[in-house]
């Protein structure tokens, strides 16, 4: 097998098999975190690992249109806003800060008795926030640390 074919195989494996699998597992850890080991922090780390793997093998150009630095900063701040916003939302409706049971979404209470479904939704919102923040932070750090030396490749950001 020639070197060109090996490179094509590597690109195919990373682009079509490994990165989607890792990303899907990260999403599974995120949405299944209330039932199985996992949660926002782990899910964000796994998602960032998948993105960094694709950066390391395929180069930054291929993914830069989706996850540019600006997008990653927006994602990180969005995660923080989601976390604090869930707490403040509970406060606006008369509960304590981060007291999810106070959020008046009674139509959600179909699966579990009382306010438990709302509590689950609050926990889920917070986990999404943590996952986004961790994902953005780790990806940003890796992006800046593995950036090309003299800044010759990113002319669009400055």
């Amino acid at each position, binding site marked *: 097998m020639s070197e060109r074919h090996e490179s094509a195989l590597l690109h195919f494996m990373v682009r079509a098999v490994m990165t989607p699998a890792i990303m899907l597992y990260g999403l599974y*850890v995120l949405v299944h975190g209330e039932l199985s*080991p996992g949660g926002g*922090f*782990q899910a964000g780390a796994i998602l960032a690992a998948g993105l960094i793997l694709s950066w390391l093998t395929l180069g930054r150009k291929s993914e830069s249109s989706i996850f540019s630095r600006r997008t990653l900063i927006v994602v990180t701040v969005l995660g923080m806003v989601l976390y604090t916003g869930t707490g403040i939302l509970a406060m606006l409706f008369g509960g304590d800060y981060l007291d999810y049971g106070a959020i008046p979404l009674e139509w959600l209470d179909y699966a579990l008795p009382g306010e438990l479904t709302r509590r689950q939704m609050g926990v889920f919102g917070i986990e999404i926030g943590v996952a986004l923040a961790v994902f953005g932070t780790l990806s940003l750090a*890796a992006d800046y*640390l*593995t950036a090309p030396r003299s800044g010759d490749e990113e002319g669009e950001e400055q």
Partner: protein
Amino acid sequence: MIWQLEMALYALLLAAAVLALWTRDLIAAVATLTIYSFLAATLMALMGAVDVALTEIALGAGVTGVLFIGAVSLMKRRSVD
């Protein structure tokens, strides 16, 4: 059976930690540190702390290695101590 396995893992953990300190090549030290993280995560999973093991795998063995290698590649001197 399980405690012999744990003892072997502890020995490997210690060896990986000492090797990461001992080696002169910084990239090799980062690789050894990744092995250390993996062994530590295995031990945590054996102890039943699956959440911590998952975090250790994803952060210690995955992202931290990349960050360390990025930081090493930014340094002027690679392997002289």
